[in-house]
């Protein structure tokens, strides 16, 4: 039976975080984020799911030491995904999220507090986070660490008696480094620990059932009540001999459910004249399945934990991205403003999740795959 061992990384991470906290007060002067407003329209379409909506962000300095920010975000979901159509009914719902942030600069140290609330008809989440960053070595090095605590409530439509809690704790450490006049380098490490009801309450696993006409039957998923994950990433950005930049990133992920994942991102940024910036990007993602995942279990209650959530399966994806930014002429109180369009095309290919809609003998159905398109259209103004 799969077990969930304690994370081997949590203690070293806490030691590093403590160290960085000890160093943070050594301070002289830093820079708060710029005053800006963003209005974004987002749309995701793929795998029978369409999600779109707006996101609004406003950030404003108060005197030279403080900065406040507010973000409002909406997901309007229409889902007829392969999971939904095989074991439930298509649905529509809306998720709203609001965040408030406060930053304080003291010398070279920046303190950030934020609170985020998210609500939909069957899920409520509240998260509070605290981050500190500190510049060193003539502002060539920035070290940061943060902690976030989340309190979620999981509900189930049509079942007024169902309500379960999830607690989330996040520790993160980051390093941003100027290596040369043309090269930036960054490292980040994030540990997330969850405890509570971690299932999707609507999803089921399937198992072989000789009494069923189609050869298999469904039972509810059963997940462990704890999960601890670690992710470490390195990224770099280089200014080319002409005015353009390339960037790259690698992230390794591992968790106590047995999922290991790798992410690679590459990109090229090319300005055109004074007003245009074009982006070209590629992202590769690959993961192994959770220990308790199976597309088809041999019998009912085959093991203590059961999952057939395709997000926990073995799969890979490729994403191609195109982006364009147009800088508008100065206007009214806006010092600068841009209109931006990003188009992303992703291809998800699953190695052990089968499309049961195709029919056939259990376990011989074709492997599932889908393509998705993402649109981000937004206006940004600096004031």
């Amino acid at each position, binding site marked *: 039976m799969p077990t969930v061992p304690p994370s081997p990384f949590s203690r070293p991470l806490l030691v590093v975080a403590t160290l960085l906290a000890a160093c943070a007060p050594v301070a002289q002067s830093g820079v708060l984020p710029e005053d800006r407003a963003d209005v974004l329209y987002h749309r995701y379409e793929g795998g029978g799911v369409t999600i779109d909506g707006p996101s609004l962000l406003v950030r404003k300095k108060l005197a030279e030491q403080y900065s406040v920010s507010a973000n409002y975000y909406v997901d309007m979901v229409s889902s007829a995904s392969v999971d939904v159509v095989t074991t439930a009914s298509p649905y529509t719902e809306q998720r709203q999220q609001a965040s408030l942030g406060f930053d304080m600069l003291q010398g070279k140290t920046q303190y950030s507090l934020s609170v985020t609330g998210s609500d939909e008809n069957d899920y409520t989440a509240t998260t509070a986070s605290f981050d500190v960053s500190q510049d060193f070595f003539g502002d060539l090095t920035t070290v940061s660490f943060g902690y976030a605590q989340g309190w979620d409530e999981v509900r189930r439509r049509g079942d007024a008696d169902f309500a379960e809690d999830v607690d989330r704790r996040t520790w993160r450490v980051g390093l941003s480094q100027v290596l040369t006049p043309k090269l930036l380098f*960054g490292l980040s490490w994030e540990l997330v620990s969850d405890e509570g009801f971690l299932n999707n309450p609507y999803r089921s696993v399937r198992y072989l059932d000789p009494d069923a006409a189609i050869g298999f039957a469904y039972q509810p998923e059963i997940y462990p009540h704890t999960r601890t994950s670690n992710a470490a990433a390195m990224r770099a950005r280089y200014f080319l001999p002409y005015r353009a930049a390339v960037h790259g990133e690698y992230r390794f992920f591992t968790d106590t459910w047995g999922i290991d994942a790798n992410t690679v991102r590459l990109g090229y940024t090319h300005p055109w004249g004074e007003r245009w910036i074009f982006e070209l990007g590629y992202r590769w993602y690959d993961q192994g399945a959770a220990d308790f995942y199976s597309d088809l279990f041999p019998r009912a209650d085959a093991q203590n934990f059961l999952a057939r959530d395709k997000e926990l399966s073995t799969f890979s994806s490729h994403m191609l991205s195109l982006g364009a930014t147009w800088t508008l002429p100065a206007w009214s109180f806006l010092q600068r403003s841009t209109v931006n369009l990003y188009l992303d095309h992703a291809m998800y290919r699953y190695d052990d999740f089968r499309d049961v809609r195709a029919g056939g003998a259990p376990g011989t159905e074709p492997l599932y795959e889908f393509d998705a398109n993402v649109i981000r259209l937004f206006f940004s103004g600096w004031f």
Partner: protein
Amino acid sequence: MDRTLPRVLVAVALAAGLAGCSSVEPWVKPYERANLADPIMSMDRDPVATSYLNHVFEAREGARGASGSHGGGCGCN
């Protein structure tokens, strides 16, 4: 054996080392940072758009975390 003491000693040594390094001469001078200050060198030029895309990934993938540069900077200002 109690392993707390060695950890505390390492922590103190590292903290002292970092504090001592505040006098290190910057190896990239302020006048050499023009390229780094160019918007195309920003690690996260559009935080709202980046945050949305990370949300898209986290909803469809098992991995999570370490996807942004929290509080990072390039020392350009």
